């Protein structure tokens, strides 16, 4: 009564019944979409198998192996459809990474399970390639276990931190914008230059005074620097035009840089090479004003980036 043929028929009926039910009652469900996609992808091959099956059924009436051939094509069709449902699963969900949403990429390993099942099912009936199918199926199985475990774990996707603040190209800035940027670097915020104790990334006010008459013991008060810079250039100790005569630990900002010719150049040089010229009385103790206590502004610990320094050109 319960022969293999009957049971096979019952199983087939259940499967087709289930598929039919899904299509009839839930035509827009994920499962129905999946099957439609699979059909869309794999129908030509399926058609070939169906034609073969029909040919075996009706074209080979006298072949003793007819029943076996028909059966094999049915199994082939089954494996083929599983294969394409699995592929459709990949095609639909591969790029979607929404953790916690069921039925989404975390179910991709299900495809691997389907490959496994398809391989083993076909291995049962296709003796010629049995071992290959079994080995393949086993590998799919191992991969399915591992990938399944990976997907079963809670998912975290990590975004990179926001990119560092972009400094616009100083050369494109208006004078006002440049001044604002400078104020921000020195005092921390635009308009903070009047506030007592305001300090920015450049940390200049730690040592330098910026207001007229402010106490400035560690470093020269910078109030009125544009005019005073020109006086400094004339100082014999500055030794304009011939840096080699300077009596300092570093004679030039960079090899071949030469000396400043304008006030702006002088200020720029002082930022990059505080040792090139030390205002009398402000050198490192005991160095006889040959060495400056100020760090070069483009090196640690201040390490202003290139665009934040004043430019020579």
């Amino acid at each position: 009564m319960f022969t293999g043929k009957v049971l096979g028929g019952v199983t087939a009926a259940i499967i087709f019944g289930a598929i039919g039910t899904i299509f009839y009652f839930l035509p827009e469900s994920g499962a129905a979409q999946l099957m439609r996609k699979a059909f869309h992808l794999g129908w030509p091959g399926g058609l070939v198998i169906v034609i073969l099956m029909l040919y075996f059924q009706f074209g080979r009436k006298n072949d003793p192996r007819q029943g076996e051939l028909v059966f094999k094509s049915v199994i082939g069709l089954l494996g083929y459809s599983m294969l394409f449902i699995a592929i459709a699963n990949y095609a639909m969900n591969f790029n979607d990474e929404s953790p916690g949403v069921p039925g989404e990429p975390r179910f991709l390993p299900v495809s691997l399970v389907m490959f496994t099942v398809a391989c083993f099912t076909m291995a049962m009936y296709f003796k010629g390639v049995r071992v290959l199918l079994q080995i393949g199926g086993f590998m799919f199985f191992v991969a399915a276990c591992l990938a399944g475990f990976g997907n079963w774990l809670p998912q975290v996707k990590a975004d990179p931190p926001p990119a560092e603040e972009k400094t616009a190209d100083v050369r494109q800035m208006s004078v006002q914008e440049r001044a604002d940027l400078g104020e921000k670097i020195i005092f921390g915020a635009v308009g903070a230059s009047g506030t007592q104790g305001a300090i920015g990334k450049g940390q200049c006010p730690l040592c330098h005074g910026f207001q007229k008459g402010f106490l400035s013991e560690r470093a020269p008060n910078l109030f009125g620097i544009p005019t005073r810079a020109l006086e400094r250039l004339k100082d014999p100790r500055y030794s304009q035009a011939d840096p080699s005569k300077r009596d300092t630990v570093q004679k030039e900002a960079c090899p071949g840089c030469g000396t400043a010719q304008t006030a702006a150049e002088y200020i720029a040089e002082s930022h990059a090479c505080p040792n090139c010229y030390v205002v009398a009385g402000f050198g490192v103790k005991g160095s006889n004003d040959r060495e400056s206590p100020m760090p070069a502004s483009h090196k640690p610990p201040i390490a202003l980036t290139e665009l934040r320094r004043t430019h020579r050109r």
Partner: protein
Amino acid sequence: MATITKQARNKIWAFLALGTFVGLLLLPLFLSLPAGAGDTPAPAASTASAAAAPADAKPVEKSRDVWYKTEGPVVGAPAPKTTDSAKDYPRYNFESRVILWVALQQHLYYGSFVLAVPIFCMIVEYLGVITKDKALSRKYDQLAYDFVKISLTAYSITALLGGIVIFTFLTLYPTFFGYLSSIFRPVMATYALLFIAESGTLYIYYYAWDKMREGFLKWIHVAMSVILNVIGTVLMMLANSWIAFMQSPAGVDADGRYLGNVWHVIHTTLWNPINVHRLLGNMAFGGGVVAAYAAYRFLTAKSDEERSHYDWMGYVAMFIGICFLIPLPFAGYWLMREVYAYRQQMGITLMGGLLAWLFIIQAVMIGALFLTANYYLWQGMDRMRGAERYQKYIKYMVFVLIMCFIVWLTPHTMVMTPAELKAMGGQQHPVLGNYGVMSAKNGAINTIITTTVLSFIIYQRANKIPTVKWAPYGNAFLFGLFTMAYVNIIWLAIYGYYIPANVRVGLSVPQVASTLSCLFIGVILNSIMLKGAKDVGPIVWGQISVRGQYALIMLATSFTWMMGLMGYIRSSVRLFWHVNEIMRDNSPWAFTHTIGFGANMISFNVLFFWLTILFVFWLGSLGVKKVPATAPVGQKVPAPAGSH
């Protein structure tokens, strides 16, 4: 007379060939010297580009190395600051990173395989030369030969994939590739030359096999395999320097400007740990692939002869693979330590942070590998009469392994719903929480390894009865050794809970030392005891269950998966940097994928690799000569089992 001249001629040819290889080996060095000197115009070029940049106008600027802290002349341009645009990151309607991932991973798999197989051949060929047993010696030789043959096909695929990688890289990440190649120009040139040298050596090695079969010539042939492997290893190390640079840059200043010292760029802090780790990993992987090949041939075999040959081959391959697997965790430990020493947050991201769950998967796989190895050995006992005496102990070993595995896999951070959290009363479980810490894990994994050693010792003596006079004492000592090793390992694991962390971290060393004691003392003592032992029954190669062969396939697949996983971990720990802290990844794909996505990709890569390698096997099997008809039935256990 004629024969003598022929021999002499052969000898001359052999010396000539050897000379050529040495020459080929040295050639890249000579060529890289002018390449190094050829860098002198480079500063001029870079000054030209620097002149365009705002600040650095003067030619010889000095700057400080980010890692070595040495001063050096600025030679290269700073690392480009990329923007999220099609110029820096061209779009091809798919995640560029994933495409590159697949290309690189496939190249890596094949690369590992073609690097591992020659090492494998070298060992097997050498075994063949030193084995006194003529038939066995021929078998080894044939085995080695078969593998070079397979690696030839794989070699061309590797080269092809390498080309694909460069093409993909250049197309998808042009700016980044430009930067890397500007720094590594001399290294890349050397690499290309070495690659040619490697190809030449490999082909000559293969085609000279028959010609150099006997006597002195054979030794030269073996020497050739050494040279082949030296070239291969240097190749790998050069390639490693690129990834090591990306992870822990050196030889450049904080802006990414090259400072003219190639050695600093190559020899970054993580370079050597990665080299060692990769070399061992490649070998284990090679053993796995070869074992899988043997299993495939075993399962498709038509005759008992074939079955016995491939059973034996699988055993040898598995054995060599496992030999390299055992030191692998220590190499990994070293690498991890160096990563921690380099950047603490990188270490924590790996072990306790974002990527920690990937290590859980790794833990699963390590456990699975050891379980499978044990299982294979137990299945292998079916080959021998007399093994029944030991088979009743298997269940206890299974039990110990599974208990340790349970401890090994208990996660430190448990996944649970909020309801479960409340029921438990906190993130930490009062019982299982204790299994989640390092102390317990060390105990568990060392017990697992010790049990594997025990399995192997039992396997070794399965069909033998020791006859030496001191056998009772030897057995008693083995018993004492293993019992106390287990006790010691577990005691140290428990002891770890009672002492402060700074002392506790030291406990892993005695634990490992205990395991290694068992491995070396136990196996050596056992081998000595079995000298001249009475055979209960022969080893009948081929008489192993199909499950045993699937265990080999499982090993191979897991190796492959694990390589993919660890590579992914190593690579993604840079997070959003192309070159750590030097060049930021500003592409839309700078985020770190979910674990699941990673697992899916790794699975894809693994399966793709196996599909193609099956094709390679098939190609290799097309012209395979019939397996020599020496029936290995009744043969002694081959050298690896007895001599190690």
